[in-house]
């Protein structure tokens, strides 16, 4: 068997591909079905968003932050809002913070649903994808009532949020959560416990805890490797201290700790935790204002600030430098998907080409977030 000489071929899993999540390119060196190397080639979606911030100013940059990660637009909005508030020392009223948390957790639900659905689709089943999108449509309907848009929300402003909760919103949102939880059990029966999924996902792309920390992975990818790190609990921001929720960590019950199945299960469990947070937020929300007084010509004092929030992909970092004028000097976003690209080459040695697709899907890579 070792005498059998084979040739390697170089494949191009090109920018146009049905299952790289966005516009990504991989240069794969494969020996038959088994890969020796998979080099990611990023940059197809670079839109110079960070540079645009220097032209449009602080208020005007808020809609652009939606486009950094369109699946988690509320989190990017919140990150930019918090960065500006920290620069200028503005405090957001309590009700505004609660509105932010509600919007953000709905967005986390939507983002994880999309991730689970597209992972199922990449593995071959098309039904869970449409079911997940159907649930996501209902969340989109709820958010549309709240802020008027379904994908690029532009809901938050510097100092709070732009709209208060409309009348009757709480009942609708709670009814939706009632509806969602049996559906999550259905996903479990359809996806998580299905033998074929387990065989496709377990023991693929195992990332140990030190590797995850060394490669800068964040969010569900990091937690699946056993590291219990969630910005909402460890560096609490906004009003997350008021809520009781667990941080799911990968346990490796289907394979090893840190394999693709763990990443998937962490996301499924986070869906349920987000439901818990939402219920608490919707019932405990106080009265008051939702927006602080912020001048139209927003000129924060010169300085820099750094914000970390827990977005759908993980620890998202916002760094803003102000020079005293109405336009920021430099804005930088640090996203979880960019770090995840770095580990793909290392993990894909010895995997099959079909597993590369599973790996990218389980790392929940969103292309616009990589290139901004």
């Amino acid at each position: 068997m070792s005498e059998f000489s084979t040739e390697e071929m170089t494949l191009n899993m090109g920018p146009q591909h049905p299952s790289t999540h966005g516009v990504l390119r991989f240069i794969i060196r494969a020996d038959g079905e088994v890969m020796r190397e998979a080099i990611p080639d990023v940059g197809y979606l670079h839109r110079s968003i960070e540079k645009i911030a220097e032209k449009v100013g602080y208020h005007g940059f808020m809609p652009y932050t939606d486009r950094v990660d369109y699946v988690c637009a509320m989190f990017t909005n919140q990150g930019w809002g918090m960065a500006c508030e920290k620069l200028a020392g503005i405090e957001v009223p309590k009700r505004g913070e609660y509105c932010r948390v509600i919007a953000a957790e709905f967005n986390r639900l939507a983002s994880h649903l999309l991730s689970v659905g597209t992972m199922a689709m990449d593995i071959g089943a098309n039904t869970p994808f449409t079911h997940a999108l159907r649930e996501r449509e209902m969340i989109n309907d709820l958010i549309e009532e709240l802020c008027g848009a379904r994908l690029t929300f532009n809901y938050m402003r510097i100092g709070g949020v732009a709209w208060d909760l409309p009348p009757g919103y709480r009942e609708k949102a709670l009814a939706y959560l009632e509806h969602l939880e049996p559906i999550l059990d259905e996903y479990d029966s359809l996806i998580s416990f299905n033998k074929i999924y387990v065989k496709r996902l377990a023991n693929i792309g195992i990332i140990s805890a030190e590797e995850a920390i060394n490669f800068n992975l964040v969010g569900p990818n990091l937690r699946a490797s056993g590291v219990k790190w969630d910005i909402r609990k460890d560096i609490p921001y906004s009003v997350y201290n008021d809520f009781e929720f667990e941080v799911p960590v990968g346990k490796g019950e289907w394979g090893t700790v840190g394999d693709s199945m763990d990443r998937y299960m962490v996301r499924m469990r986070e869906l349920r935790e987000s439901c818990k947070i939402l219920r608490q937020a919707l019932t405990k929300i106080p009265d008051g204002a939702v927006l602080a007084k912020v001048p139209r010509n927003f000129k924060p004092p010169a300085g820099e600030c750094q914000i970390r929030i827990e977005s759908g992909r993980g620890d998202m970092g916002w760094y803003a430098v102000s020079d005293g004028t109405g336009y920021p000097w430099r804005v930088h976003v640090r996203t979880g998907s960019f770090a995840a690209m770095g580990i793909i080459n290392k993990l894909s040695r010895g995997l099959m080409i079909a597993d590369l697709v599973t790996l990218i899907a389980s790392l929940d890579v969103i292309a616009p977030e990589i290139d901004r």
Partner: protein
Amino acid sequence: MQQWVDSLIAAGKFGPNPPRDLIYALFILVFSAIVFLGVAFPFAGIVSWAERRVWARIQSRVGPNRVGPNGVLQWLADGVKNVCKEDVVPTLADARLFKLAPYLVVLAFVVPWAVMPFSSDLILADLNVGILFMTAVTALTVVGVLMAGWSSNDKWSLIGGVRSAAQIVSYEIPAGLSIFPIVLMTGTLSMQGIIRAQGWAPYDWFAFANPFTFVAANILFISLLAEGNRTPFDLPEADSELVAGFATEYSGMRYLFFFMAEWGNLFILGAIITTLFLGGWQFPHVTDDRVIMNVLQLLIFNVKVLFLVFLSMWIRATLPRVRIDQLMSLCWKYFIPISFVDMIGAAVWVAIWPNGNPAVGYVMLALFCALLILFIRRVIYYFRRAKMELYLSPVV
């Protein structure tokens, strides 16, 4: 059909001394054209519409419903659109093989219709090696798929074609082995012979005759799914990995030929399983009129085959695909040993009870009905849990 033509010649319809071979050839041409063009190809088209509707309902959406009443003519629209497309042959591709490959695949799908037992009299050619002919010809797809993969001059197509060849060739073995229990029990390979050995009632079908044939039925179903490149074994056309596998470089009508062959194969899959295990066209003898009996038998045959087609569409919508090495290990490590054990068990069974054991038939049928009732209860459980009122948009 040969007896019918012989009876016509004997009755003197063609004159006193007709050239037999010419008459046979004429009848074969005419009736093959009727069956192939009138039944096989439209079926492949309609089942594409049916598959899209079934998929869509399982996925909570609607599916094509605009073209024609309820969208029934969607496949015609697709066909016309594809015929109007530009015929792209890549420059570096081997043009002759590239153009020939779809036709080989279609050949593999069309030819088995010649031995399809639609009813007790409606069969084009009642070969006495009918079932062997069917399984042998469906394996011709390997040649077409390999040709498509290689001649496209594209690494992704090559991977898809080679995967498909490995898959089809491997799964021929459990398929063939699963046919053996039936052959042992009836002693004949001819399609009509096998059907005549069964009765019309479910407990007379071979699927429930003994536990070994039940297992053989399941293994045959799964192997035929694998041979037809259906999910969960649709790696050669894995849409999320290799764009379209061996058919990546194809466009227009050539592309559609591959898929027409895949959908048409569904009917052949259904026909093989119906003939061998589900009693074929057997219908209770309600009337002596031959024509009415034939019509009823045709109907019941189609009902059984279409149910199996629906089952394979349902499975396609539910299950993800297995990886190539898992597919191979499934075949060689699980299906082949099980079918060997099956074959031996069926041989022992036939040695002990040469004429079958009706009591076991009743017991097996009862067990199967219990399983079915359990299934329906699970379905109702999921249906009730879903809180339907929240599903429907306020606008609908």
